[in-house]
């Protein structure tokens, strides 16, 4: 397992020149974010600042709004009050801004959401070809590079349905990486996988972390949080209850709710 210094400032390694980082020291800034689903107040005045190169793990019980918070960062969900600023660009109803932000933020989903009618390679090259306007050869080379990074270069010409869950999720990660994003969002990416496959995906994510990627991860995998996170955020009922460095978070949780939550998942 790679050694990851949780206190690292997240500057990219010299030998990983492909990683792009934000110009701003602040990668994501969320100010007093509030969202309602109809009458249900799902996010309540969230304040969060994510620095460049940081790895944040967000945990909490179901329905706490963790996924919703993540999905606000690339405006897959909109909000009624508050501000979200990604890499210096504020997200509003302005479509151009939204698309600019989405180009720089990659997201991996719990249900993989691969495009079933395209091969693995086509899944990965679609966005670079049509959004970044890369020439076809360059896009394919890029895709094969990232598929090799996630350790499945030989699957390039298969269709998603022919792959196992762990392989599909790694394709999803490669697909997001092919857009060379500055920030990666992981929404419970191992929750739909069985334990053997969970490890292969987590290992991939650890490598990404080592390379200095700014990551926001919603996960129940506390081992991963301990290993990789700079900060662990605990959310419940739409609010951030507690936030701390992993060591402190796991050994000395301060809030009652956090203690209850940890006692239930860390047996």
């Amino acid at each position, binding site marked *: 397992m790679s050694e990851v210094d949780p206190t690292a400032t997240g500057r990219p390694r010299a030998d990983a020149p492909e990683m792009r980082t934000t110009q701003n020291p602040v990668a994501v800034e969320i100010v007093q974010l509030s969202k309602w689903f109809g009458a249900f107040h799902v996010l309540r005045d969230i304040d969060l600042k994510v620095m460049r190169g940081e790895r944040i793990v967000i945990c909490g019980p179901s329905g706490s709004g963790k996924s919703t918070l993540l999905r606000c960062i690339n405006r897959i969900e909109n909000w009624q009050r508050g501000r979200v600023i990604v890499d210096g660009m504020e997200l509003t109803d302005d479509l151009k801004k939204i698309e600019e932000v989405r180009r720089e933020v990659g997201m991996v989903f719990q249900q993989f959401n691969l*495009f079933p009618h395209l091969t693995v390679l086509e899944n990965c090259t679609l966005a670079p070809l049509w*959004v970044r306007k890369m020439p076809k050869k360059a896009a394919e080379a890029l895709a094969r590079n990232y598929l090799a990074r996630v350790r499945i270069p030989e699957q390039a010409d298969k269709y998603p349905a022919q792959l196992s869950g762990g392989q599909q999720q790694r394709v999803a990660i490669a697909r997001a990486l092919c857009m060379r994003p500055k920030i990666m969002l992981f929404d419970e990416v191992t929750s739909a996988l069985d334990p053997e496959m969970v490890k292969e995906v987590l290992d991939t994510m650890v490598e990404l972390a080592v390379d200095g990627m700014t990551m926001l991860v919603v996960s129940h995998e506390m081992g991963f949080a301990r290993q990789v996170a700079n900060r662990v955020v605990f959310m419940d009922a739409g609010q951030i209850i507690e936030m701390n460095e992993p060591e402190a978070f796991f050994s000395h949780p301060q809030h009652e709710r956090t203690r209850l939550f940890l006692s239930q998942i860390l047996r």
Partner: protein
Amino acid sequence: MTMDAQRSYVRRALTEPEPPPTASSGAFGLIQQRLFDGVLNSTLTIISLVIIAAIAWPTVKFLLIDAVWQGSSRVDCLPETVKREVGACWPFIAAKFRQFMYGFYPQDQQWRVNLTYALGVILLVPLLIPRIPGKGLNAVLFFGVFPVVGFFLLVGDVLGLEHVETAVWGGFLVTLVISFTGIVGSLPLGILLALGRRSDLPIVRTLCVVFIELWRGVPLITVLFFATYMLPLFLPGDWRIDGLLRVLIGVVLFAAAYMAEVVRGGLQAIPRGQYEAAMALGLGYWRTTGFIILPQALKIVIPGIVNSFISLFKDTTLVLIVAIFDLLGQLRAAFADPNWATPVTLFTGFAFAGMIYFLVSFGMSRYALFTERRLDTGRPN
């Protein structure tokens, strides 16, 4: 002797995978297994065979065995002349064949119709065969260039070609023209309407809903009637729109409304995750729709789309109401010819028309099935 339940077990030697057992003993075994195992299945098989025989035998008898193959007038198809029971009167079809195929298109100009058919076939067949490359160019030629070329070939009035009024077009030519225009026009328009109906912009959505509900709310006959007889009253002054063109416009708009709902069903079947993944990658609305959503949605509703196409193809017979003589129209006109009036003329005519309609519809149906199988990339093998 009682056996104690085993408490623990460890496998000593792992078995290798073996090939599956082959189906029992060849063709005869298969027939016996599938059709005749057990009393119920055997009875059903026998009843089915009896029904098939009861239908197939008289059909074959009428169409082939008792049919008359040579002749020049009604007399040759009468039982008195032939001295036996008479089946289909094929000379009738042969004599009227030109009318069935071309209507009253001038005989010396019919080569233009043949040329148009030939062009159509030459462009369509490579499009249908998956292995042949250059599909993009082929599609542009078939859907873009061919209609224009076909139009000028058939109507004339250019390049020294004699002008042929659409009023004299008839028979299968008219059926094909209306079907082709309807199919090629309704699918893209239907897709746009379906997308518009799901739009977030209230004006676009309302317009699409109104359009769809309006055109679905009236029968095709009234659409044809309105287009042919009422539309000229709404047009300013001397403006004249060709009779066939009016029908074509009506058919396309009508079919597009139905197609829109079929496509919308497909769009609704796409999981939200597909939209979200495309959004997260930065693909905008049109790229998401064109590359991700529509290919999947259209694949899902191929049965519905082909259904609409087949329906449209057969609905062309309704143009008889507005005095346009498609295949069936020409057939009915031919029935009125006293030179060919016999007891079997009607049956022969309808059998002929029925076979043509069936062939085309069945062909579309099988091709759709073939396409579905080929596009089924969701299967693990």
